[in-house]
């Protein structure tokens, strides 16, 4: 399925924000909305590791990673976002308020194989650092490419959350990873 961006002024931003907060309170991550998407899009139904699912709308528009910046975020042990820096906000297209309290998989792109995230979680939950190339999904349906490092936050001997730092990847290595991910996704299908 495909579509184009639509504009609507029928719902005030305040009401949208209130609805967002309510859904977040209820633990529901909403489907992506066509009015947020820029350009022609494809629609996918993504099911996450916790059994929840949502509709994502995906375009082929890449947002180039800015030179010199690091995207930093932190989550609790359940993978719920507790901190984002400005580069995270800028690259994801969401506001800070929309991100805090959401599962980190709000950024999951359908081109990423499930096995990559399973490996990430298995690694960091065992107290080790995970590194890998990741294609992330933006609020506007586009994507951005990163080299991600995730470390457990250990306080008094216990893991209390995770810090993720993303940086501009080597294009050559990123392309090799994307080819590998495409093969992994074929097998998963």
């Amino acid at each position, binding site marked *: 399925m495909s579509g184009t961006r639509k504009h609507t002024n029928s719902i005030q931003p305040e009401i949208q924000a209130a609805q967002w907060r309510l859904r977040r309170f209820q633990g529901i991550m909403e489907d992506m909305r066509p009015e947020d998407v820029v350009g022609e899009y494809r629609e996918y139904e993504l099911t996450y590791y916790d059994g929840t699912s949502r509709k994502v709308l995906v375009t082929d528009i890449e947002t180039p990673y800015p030179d010199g910046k*690091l995207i930093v975020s932190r989550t609790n042990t359940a993978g719920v976002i507790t901190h984002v820096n400005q580069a995270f906000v800028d690259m994801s297209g969401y506001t800070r308020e929309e991100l805090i309290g959401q599962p980190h998989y709000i950024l999951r792109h359908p081109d990423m194989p499930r096995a990559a995230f399973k490996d990430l979680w298995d690694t960091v939950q065992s107290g080790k650092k995970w590194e890998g190339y990741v294609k992330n999904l933006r609020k506007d349906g586009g994507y951005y490419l990163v080299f991600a490092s995730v470390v457990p936050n250990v306080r008094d001997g216990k893991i209390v959350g995770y*810090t993720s730092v993303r940086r501009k990847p*080597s294009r050559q290595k990123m392309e090799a990873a994307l080819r590998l991910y495409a093969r992994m996704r074929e097998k998963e299908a």
Partner: protein
Amino acid sequence: MTYQMTVSPDFSPRHIAGWYIFNTWLQKTLGEDIHLELYQDFESQRKSIREDKIDLIYANPFDASMLIREKGFIALARPLGKEDEVVIAVPANSPVNKVEELQSGLRLAFTDDPNVHLVGMIMLEPANLSSENIRLQMVDSYAVVAKQLLRGEADAGIFLKEAFYGLSSLTRREMRPLVESQISDIFHAFLVGPRLADKKDAIQDALVRMTETPGGRSVLEALGIAGWANVSREDAEFMVDLMDAIR
């Protein structure tokens, strides 16, 4: 007992006297004997840290991680508005206009400042460059990094941003920044070791209140620091996690 204080060897040579003035002020404020030992290089300073000779340190982010996680140091304060950003520069006449145009075999000049080197190497990754395909030239100071570029003996150099913009305008005119980091979350910090843990609150309070007195303000001026901001345990742990993630 005489405690020992030291300063990360990447401090600006212009502020050597400032650190001696700061030490005098700190001794007077705390009523303790403190000896200031300045090291020429990171390795000799780390040797003293490993031998548990250091009690107070103004540390770079790289060493702060090790001090907090392995040596039980506590971060108390960070300099206001002073973040550890990095510049990669090329000679002004270089044909290279963006990082991705840098080629394997690059001659790269840098200092032994571990944090600056780490961030600089990260900024070269988009060009598929690493220590395996770069000709590394470690030199003694940022002035020598600049000299290598100006003489045509290096194709690119890694600078602490503050050091790059501290070079004379004549020297800087001969170079061009290719990329500058904008990380914000990485900073130098003032830390105390286990032997001074019971005085941490008094030291932290004295540091953040330095701007309140003319004496404190003149010491800060000698250090080239606008003031000190509190660093909580979690602030410091956050930076250490960040450093762990990128190293």
